[in-house]
């Protein structure tokens, strides 16, 4: 068995004295593990940082085997974010959530493309909105998509201000009425209305966090949502 494809490094776990088990996210093969011989060594370890883009060739005798990767670096993303106290935890969060939410060897091309673009956007321009939208795509691709197109009560497309924590559907200010206090605030930046301020992004992350915690995690066997996401949210909260 053999294939060659580019992929994003999600994690690298030491295996034996000098090798690593690397978790790659590729477009055609999904989240796919393989052993990188010498991956824990001085030359290879810097190439296997989360978020790095690799050209990988996977080989195994049988499809069911873990197999081994031969890798060539395409580009690294982490080094330019090392000094950024928000973008670096966002990169960790994105990689940890992909590792947490995706089944092995299940291709998710739209999610791969969005992840690729989001990782490239981190630390640049309006990247907080890109990250928030990425979490919405993650929820959608794992079967828990939110419907933010129209109000679940009135059907209106204007004045959307909340999301129902139960159904994940948008609710307008008018439709919410006395129930507004029980709904999750929907930040305007997710409706395409302006850039995300840190406080808006925080509102958005609390909203997506609710569905990651209450919908996605139980479906994955009650595993807790990775702490890396909570640390990103904490870092953003401190920046507000």
């Amino acid at each position, binding site marked *: 068995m053999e294939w060659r494809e580019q992929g994003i490094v999600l994690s690298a776990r030491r295996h034996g004295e000098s090798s690593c088990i690397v978790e790659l996210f590729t477009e055609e093969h999904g989240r796919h593990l393989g052993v990188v011989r010498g991956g824990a060594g001085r030359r290879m370890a810097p190439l296997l940082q989360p978020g790095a883009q690799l050209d990988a060739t996977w080989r195994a005798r049988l499809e069911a085997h873990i197999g081994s990767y031969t890798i060539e670096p395409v580009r690294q993303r982490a080094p330019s974010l090392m000094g950024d106290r928000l973008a*670096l935890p966002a990169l960790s969060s994105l990689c940890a959530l992909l590792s947490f939410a995706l089944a092995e060897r299940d291709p998710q091309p739209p999610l791969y493309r969005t992840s690729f673009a989001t990782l490239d956007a981190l630390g640049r321009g309006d990247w907080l909105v890109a990250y928030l939208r990425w979490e919405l795509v993650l929820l959608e691709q794992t079967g828990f998509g939110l419907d933010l197109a129209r109000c679940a009560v009135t059907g209106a497309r204007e004045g959307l201000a909340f999301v129902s924590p139960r159904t994940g559907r948008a609710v307008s200010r008018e439709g919410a009425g006395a129930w507004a206090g029980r709904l999750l605030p929907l930040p305007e930046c997710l409706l395409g209305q302006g850039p995300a301020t840190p406080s808006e992004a925080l509102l958005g992350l609390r909203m997506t966090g609710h569905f990651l915690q209450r919908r996605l995690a139980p479906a994955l066997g009650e595993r807790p949502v990775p*702490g890396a996401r909570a640390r990103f949210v904490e*870092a953003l909260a401190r920046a507000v």
Partner: protein
Amino acid sequence: MSGGNREIDALIDVLARLPGLGPRSARRAVLHMIRRREALMSPLARTMAHVAETARECTRCGNISTAETCPVCADPARSTGEICVVEDVADLWAMERGGAFAGRYHVLGGTLSALDAVGPEDLGIPKLVARVREEEISEVILALNATVDGQTTAHYIAEALADTGARLTSLAQGVPIGGELDYLDDGTIQAALAARKAF
């Protein structure tokens, strides 16, 4: 393995589990020790038994030593105003080998890790914050690895220490001594360029 002797085989088996050794090198080491029993094997056995009994974590910094307070913390000649935060005892020993730092250390015992679900409470971060306050530390040097987990931890510590008044610094990242640009990875070149200084 050793020609049928069970005790010697057991010794080879234990040694072969050490990092950097395999069955073949463990066999060679055991044979070497047996041939130099008085000069090597007996002192080694005594020393190992003593260290196994007395080795412990320093109650102040987390270094490993055979006393309650490690030699670094107990040394009155070392600066008390600076703490160098390292991930692991091996990093502390590496810093000491260089001999360039005359302050004290704090060993975290790991980094925040999404993969291994290691959170701030699993590391010595609250203890570090308390130490910086109690010992009136003027500078905290974050000497953590230049990895995603290492630098995420550094940012977290920086936030935790923000209101202590201590100056926060971190190790420089760039071209190693004797390094050739052609052999460096893109990330190191990026970091080196970003941290360039007047010449």
